[in-house]
C-alpha cells in the first residue's frame, strides 16, 4: 500500500492511556443494579504496537473498543489518545483513528469502490488521492470484479474486505479492528494478517485487534489483554504470558476413531492428559523432561492408533484458558 499519512500525531510516549474505566448501562438505580459491562480497566497502548484484545462474547471487549473510539462514554475513568482526553476532545479520535466495526452497515448502497473512495475523501484525502487509493485497495483485496457492485449485494467475505479497505484508506496512525478476519477464507485471512504486519513494520501504525482467531492472531500480536466478565484478567507480551502460565510443552494427539478405545487407557494413566474433544487429547509435559516424556507417551499410545499428533509450546489459547478457565471455542458455541 503506497499511501502517505495525512496527519502526524503529537509526539507522545503513549497512544492510548486508559485509566480505571468502568461502564454500567442504564440510568439511575437501573444502572447501579445492572452488571457492569466493564470494570476498572486500565491499560496503556504504545506507539507501533499490535495489541490484541481477547475474550468471550459478553466479556466487555466491544464496550471497551467503543469507549476507545468515543462511541460510548465510560461511567467512570478516563481515556486519552496521544495525550488528548477524548471526552473533551472527541475530534482526536476522528483525526487519528480508523475503526472497523464488526458489521459495516453504513455504506450498503454504494459500490465497493465508492465506499472506499468516499471514506478516504471524508477523512481528508484529496479527490485524486482518494480515487487512486480506492482503485488500489480494490485490486489489492481481490475486489476488482465486484468494484461496481453494491456493498449489500456482496458476499459476507467480500463485505468484510470492503470494511477492511475502508479502514485502511487514508492511513490513520491508529487502527482498531473488530474481528477483521470473520467470514474470510484462509488465503484472505493470511493476506489480512500479512498486510497488518506490513503496515505496522513499514509505517509504525498502531493496531488494536479484537479477534477470536487466536491461533492466527498469535503470529502478529505483540501484547494482549485477556478480558473476562468486564475485567482484564491477563495483560502482557504473548511470550511472557505463556511463560507465566506454563513452561510446558504441549503434545496434541488425534486418535483414530476406530482405535480410540485401545489408546485411551494409556492416556488416562498420564497425570497431565486432558481430553478436549472425542478422539482429541492434549498432554502437558515439563519442558525439561519433554523429550523423554513425549517418547514415553507415544510409546504408550502407539503410533498406529494415532491419526495425527503435534508438539508445540503453550499457545495463546492455552493462556486464555488458564486465565478464564474456558476454551474460546466453547465460548463461541454458547
Amino acid at each position: 500500500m503506497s499511501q502517505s499519512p495525512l496527519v502526524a500525531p503529537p509526539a507522545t510516549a503513549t497512544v492510548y492511556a486508559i485509566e480505571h474505566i468502568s461502564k454500567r448501562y442504564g440510568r439511575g438505580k437501573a444502572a447501579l443494579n445492572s452488571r457492569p459491562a466493564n470494570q476498572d480497566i486500565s491499560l496503556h497502548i504504545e506507539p507501533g504496537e499490535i495489541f490484541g484484545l481477547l475474550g468471550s462474547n459478553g466479556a466487555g471487549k466491544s464496550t471497551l473498543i467503543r469507549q476507545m473510539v468515543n462511541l460510548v462514554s465510560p461511567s467512570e475513568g478516563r481515556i486519552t489518545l496521544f495525550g488528548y482526553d477524548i471526552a473533551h476532545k472527541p475530534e482526536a479520535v476522528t483525526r487519528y483513528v480508523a475503526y472497523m466495526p464488526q458489521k459495516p452497515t453504513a455504506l450498503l448502497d454504494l459500490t465497493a469502490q465508492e465506499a472506499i473512495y468516499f471514506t478516504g475523501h471524508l477523512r481528508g484525502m484529496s479527490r485524486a488521492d482518494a480515487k487512486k487509493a480506492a482503485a488500489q485497495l480494490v485490486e489489492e483485496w481481490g475486489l476488482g470484479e465486484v468494484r461496481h457492485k453494491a456493498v449489500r449485494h456482496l458476499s459476507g467475505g467480500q463485505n468484510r474486505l470492503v470494511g477492511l479497505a475502508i479502514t485502511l484508506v487514508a492511513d490513520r496512525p491508529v487502527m482498531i479492528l473488530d474481528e477483521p478476519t470473520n467470514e474470510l477464507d484462509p488465503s484472505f485471512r493470511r493476506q489480512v494478517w500479512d498486510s497488518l504486519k506490513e503496515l505496522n513494520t513499514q509505517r509504525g501504525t498502531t493496531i488494536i485487534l479484537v479477534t477470536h482467531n487466536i491461533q492466527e492472531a498469535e503470529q502478529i500480536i505483540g501484547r494482549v489483554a485477556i478480558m473476562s466478565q468486564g475485567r482484564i484478567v491477563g495483560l502482557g507480551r504473548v511470550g511472557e504470558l505463556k511463560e507465566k502460565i506454563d513452561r510446558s510443552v504441549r503434545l496434541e494427539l488425534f486418535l483414530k476413531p476406530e482405535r480410540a478405545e485401545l489408546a485411551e487407557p494409556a492416556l488416562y494413566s498420564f497425570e497431565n492428559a486432558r481430553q478436549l474433544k472425542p478422539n482429541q487429547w492434549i498432554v502437558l509435559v515439563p519442558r525439561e523432561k519433554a523429550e523423554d516424556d513425549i517418547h514415553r507417551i507415544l510409546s504408550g499410545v502407539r503410533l498406529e492408533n494415532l491419526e495425527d499428533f503435534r508438539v508445540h509450546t503453550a499457545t495463546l489459547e492455552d493462556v486464555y484458558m488458564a486465565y478464564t478457565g474456558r476454551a474460546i471455542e466453547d465460548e463461541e458455541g454458547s
Partner: protein
Amino acid sequence: MLNFWDLFVIQLANWRWSWPATVINGLLVPFTTFFFFKMITSGNSSETNLYLISGNIIVSLLFTTMYGTCARFAFMRTFGVLDYYATLPVYKPLLVLAVNCGFLVLTLPTAFMTLLLGEWFFGLQVSVNLTFVILVPLASFSLSAVGAFVGVVAPNFDTATTISGILQFVFMGASPVLIPAERLPEIVQWFSYLLPSTYAADALRLSLTAQYTGRFFLDLAFLIIFDLAAMVFVASKMEWRAG
C-alpha cells in the same frame, strides 16, 4: 462543504435502485385523491381546487419526506450506521442536512408532477414561479425535520415509524392542508398554528396565485426559522459520539 457533498451523494446512493418506486408511491396519493374528488364532486370552486392541489403537494411530502427521514434516521441509529459517521471528521448538522436534501431531491419531481396533475384534473391555471421553487424545499425541510426528530429520539425503528405514521395523519387532518382553516374545529385551528404544514400549505397556495401578502412573508419567515432551528435541534439530539 466538501463534507456535505460527499454526505449528500452517499444519501442519494440510498435511492439508486429504489427511486422509481418511491416517486411512483409519492404520486399515488395525490393521483388517487384528485381522481376521487373529480369523480364525486362537480363544479368545485377554484378555491377548493387550489386547496386540493396545494394540499396534495404537502400530503405527498408528508408521505415521502417526513416518513422517509424518520425511517432513515431510525435505521441509522438502530443498525450502527451512525457509528461510521461518528468516527469520521463529519459535522453532525451537515449530515442532517445531507439526509434532508437527499429526500428533497426525491420529492421534487413528485411535487411538480402533483401540480401538473392538479392543473390537468381541475383545469386550474396556477402560477409556477421562483417562490414556488423556493417554497417546496422549505416545506420539505420543515416536514423532514419532524421526521428526523422522531427518528433520532424514538427508542427503536418500529416505534419511530409508527409515530411517524400517526403524525402524517395528524398533520394532514389537524392543519388546513386540504380544507380551509374555518372548517376545522376551533381548538384544532389553534393547534394547527404549531404545525409547519399549516404554514407550508398556506404559503404554497398564496404562491400559486401570486398573492405576496404580509401573510405570505410571515409563512416564509416561519418556515426559514423553523427549518434552521429544527436542523440544529435534531443534530443536537442525535447521539453518536460520547462526551
